């Protein structure tokens, strides 16, 4: 699994992107892109005098790390940094976002956030494996998200299996606009992610994966695409593409390889169980799986990205546009995912109807609000054409959370002590019923 890369191996592709806010549409599968992601394994994270990565051990100098995280923020923050390891008796609360450490020697790892020159989706990206940056922040309008590092609840949350570098900013500035706080939160995370991964840039013990896109298709295989709904509903509920606010974005194609390379970053803080954190955009399982199965069982026909508008007419238009693009690209089948629920269920159904009417076979991925016993209607919107749905679990199932020895990210949850035992619906468990299909959970009738 050792991979040596040499300077001469770089393929420098300057990919042209538009940097205007509204027209984010760039790049179809037609552009040739070659990206190599090198994953450096991390077995332990410690604090020390000098930040470095060596032999699987990541050492962080807290002061330098803090400076890197807070650089360029609008507000002033006090910053606490701690480590939570799998099986430790600790609960992490007030989770806003989780991001995978990622660094590109020749450009920003998160275009639009950590730099504006762009080699996204090409050349080399260094990432750290087995570790994640988890941000915790208390603020009005941000929904509560928790995870336990030990016990039964770990089976619901992917990040319980990783070493979490928990960064907890506390806002000191009194008069600050919501949109600036929203921007700061994302800036902090992307900077933390780049800093940590940059420490491994000279290391040679990485497992490399090559992502290579081209236009070739294999006849006889079905053309399968992916429609990727993201939220864009204003500050603290925005998902960003190339660092831009997507509220006015119309559905368009986006390169799957660029999605894996930091193009989509989350600033969306919603109901915890169905959150798509930045980490899951970077590691989008639908894209990963379609790439892995490309030219073997299917031809990966590309990714269409769209927002979940809060106006019905826009939803209808977006759904139509998705179907049109899918038809243009010759898709035979399409998988559609969303973030959220409620009115976002309507986007799923409208897109399903539009695509099926255009002759494209649709599969949806969604979670359920079927009540504590699972016997209530699972969604608030349905269509007779939605006959192929993958469920990622019921948000309303009641879980018992045991007492933990301590908590990170805060000490109080609502009115209770964060580490005490309590019963609650699954919905407060961060990403437990994530609708990108990360987990192996489903529901079953009894």
């Amino acid at each position, binding site marked *: 699994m050792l991979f040596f890369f040499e300077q001469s191996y770089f393929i420098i592709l300057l990919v042209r992107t538009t940097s205007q806010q509204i027209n984010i549409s760039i790049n179809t599968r037609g552009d040739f892109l070659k990206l190599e992601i090198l994953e450096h394994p991390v077995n332990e994270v410690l604090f020390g005098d000098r930040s470095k990565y060596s032999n699987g051990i990541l050492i962080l100098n807290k002061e330098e790390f803090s400076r890197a995280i807070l650089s360029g923020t609008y507000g002033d923050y006090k910053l606490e940094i701690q480590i939570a390891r799998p099986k430790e008796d600790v609960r992490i609360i007030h989770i806003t976002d989780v991001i995978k450490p990622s660094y590109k020697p020749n450009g920003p790892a998160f275009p639009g956030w950590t730099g504006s020159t762009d080699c996204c989706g090409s050349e080399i990206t260094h990432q750290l494996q087995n570790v994640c940056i988890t941000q915790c922040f208390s603020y*009005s*309008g941000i*929904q509560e998200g928790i995870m336990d590092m030990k016990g039964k609840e770990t*089976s619901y949350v992917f990040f319980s299996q990783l070493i979490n570098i928990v960064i907890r900013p506390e806002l000191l500035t009194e008069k600050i606009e*919501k949109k600036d706080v929203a921007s700061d939160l994302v800036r902090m995370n992307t900077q933390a992610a780049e800093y940590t991964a940059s420490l491994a840039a000279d290391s040679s013990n990485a497992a490399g994966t090559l992502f290579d896109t081209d236009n070739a298709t294999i006849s006889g295989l*079905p053309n*399968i695409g992916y429609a990727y709904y993201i939220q864009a*509903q*204003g*500050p603290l*509920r925005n998902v960003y593409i190339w660092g831009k606010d997507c509220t006015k974005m119309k559905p368009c194609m986006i390169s799957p390889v660029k999605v894996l390379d930091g193009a989509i970053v989350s600033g969306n803080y919603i*109901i915890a169980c169905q959150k798509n954190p930045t980490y899951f955009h970077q590691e989008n*399982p*639908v894209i990963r*799986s*379609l790439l892995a*199965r490309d030219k073997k*069982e*299917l031809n990966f026909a590309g990714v269409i990205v769209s927002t979940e508008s809060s106006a019905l007419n826009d939803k209808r238009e977006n759904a139509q546009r998705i179907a049109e693009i899918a038809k243009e690209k010759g898709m035979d*089948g*399409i*998988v559609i995912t969303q973030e*959220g*629920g*409620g009115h976002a269920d309507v986007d799923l159904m409208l897109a399903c109807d539009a695509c099926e009417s255009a002759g494209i*076979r649709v*599969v949806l*991925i969604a979670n*359920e*609000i079927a*009540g504590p*016993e*699972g*016997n*209530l*209607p*699972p*969604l608030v919107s*349905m269509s007779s054409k939605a*006959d*192929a*749905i*993958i*469920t990622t679990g*019921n*948000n*309303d*199932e009641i879980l018992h959370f045991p007492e933990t020895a301590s908590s990170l990210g805060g000490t109080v949850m609502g009115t209770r002590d964060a580490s005490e035992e309590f019963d609650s*619906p699954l*919905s407060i468990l961060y990403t437990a019923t994530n609708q*990108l299909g*990360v*987990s*192996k*959970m*489903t*529901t*079953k*009738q*009894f």
Partner: protein
Amino acid sequence: MSNKYRVIHFINQFFAQIGGEEKADTPFFVSDHVIGPGMAFQNSLGADFEIVSTFVCGDNYFSENSEKILPEIVEEMKKWNPDILIAGPAFNAGRYGPNCGAICKAAQEYLGIPGVTGMYEENPGVEMYRKNCYIIKTKNSAVGMRTAVPAMTALIKKIAAGSEEPDPEKDGYFAKGIKKNIFVNETGADRAIDMVINKTAGQPYKTEMIMPAFEQISPAPPVEDIKKAKLALVTDAGITDKMNTERLESARASKYLSLSIAGMDTMLPDKFCSVHGGFDTTAANKNPNVLVPLDILRRYVRENKIGSLFNTLYSTTGNGTSLKNAQQFGAEIAEKLLENKVDAVILTST
């Protein structure tokens, strides 16, 4: 001390060979013998199981006195220390079915033991009790005994063995309507791609999520004369007083608020705001009238376009609200409105 599973079998007057409809008022009694279909069950279950007693009750006696005798039956069951209860099977019998369901439900609730019975799909006992016990699907008359008994005993053995969770499709019982989260071998993403490949190829596929129909309610009759009507305002836009003194949640609301709008001609931004976590509340917090049009409605009262406005605004947060809570809030609010002789409601949602 035998290691056998102890089974109680419940039957009615007919299957106890006492008589037919004319004996439906047979009072409840207990026998330490195996009676009627119990023998078929005992044979089918084999040596690891023992029907230790048979509980008998006439269909009418049970139906008419169920509140009194269910506690009696429960106490009697405890004396026999059972592991499992078999009731019926009742096929399509309209009193026997619900009675079997009721005794199975009591066994689960008060003794913590599973109850297994059998009914035809049209038996009213199916909808009433499918959640509380295992109701094997049977034919519509005792002609089906020959297939009901093996199906019921197979399920009983599975439950007793405890290594595999019963499955409505595999084991042939009416789905309890209980759904649980379980883990399988593939991620949701992979399952989705498997499914789309099948669907595109015209191969069979099975959806993981089925949508049962929402209950339809008959609309209430309209307001006759709006000019005389007393209207009330309800919202799920998460409106609270400025300090949110009662701590209405931004999501998964556990309560609703009764906010006074007495003496107010408009929703003032320094009195009200929205804590709804599912949308950008900037516009609403500047002018809460865009969520609750109090300003227009007060003016309409002055202009005699409507009769009057009820002075309490009911508010909750419709963001990830459990359907059960929403139902409960609605029912409680309805009661209060009826008490206050409200004629109609304007409900604003985001």
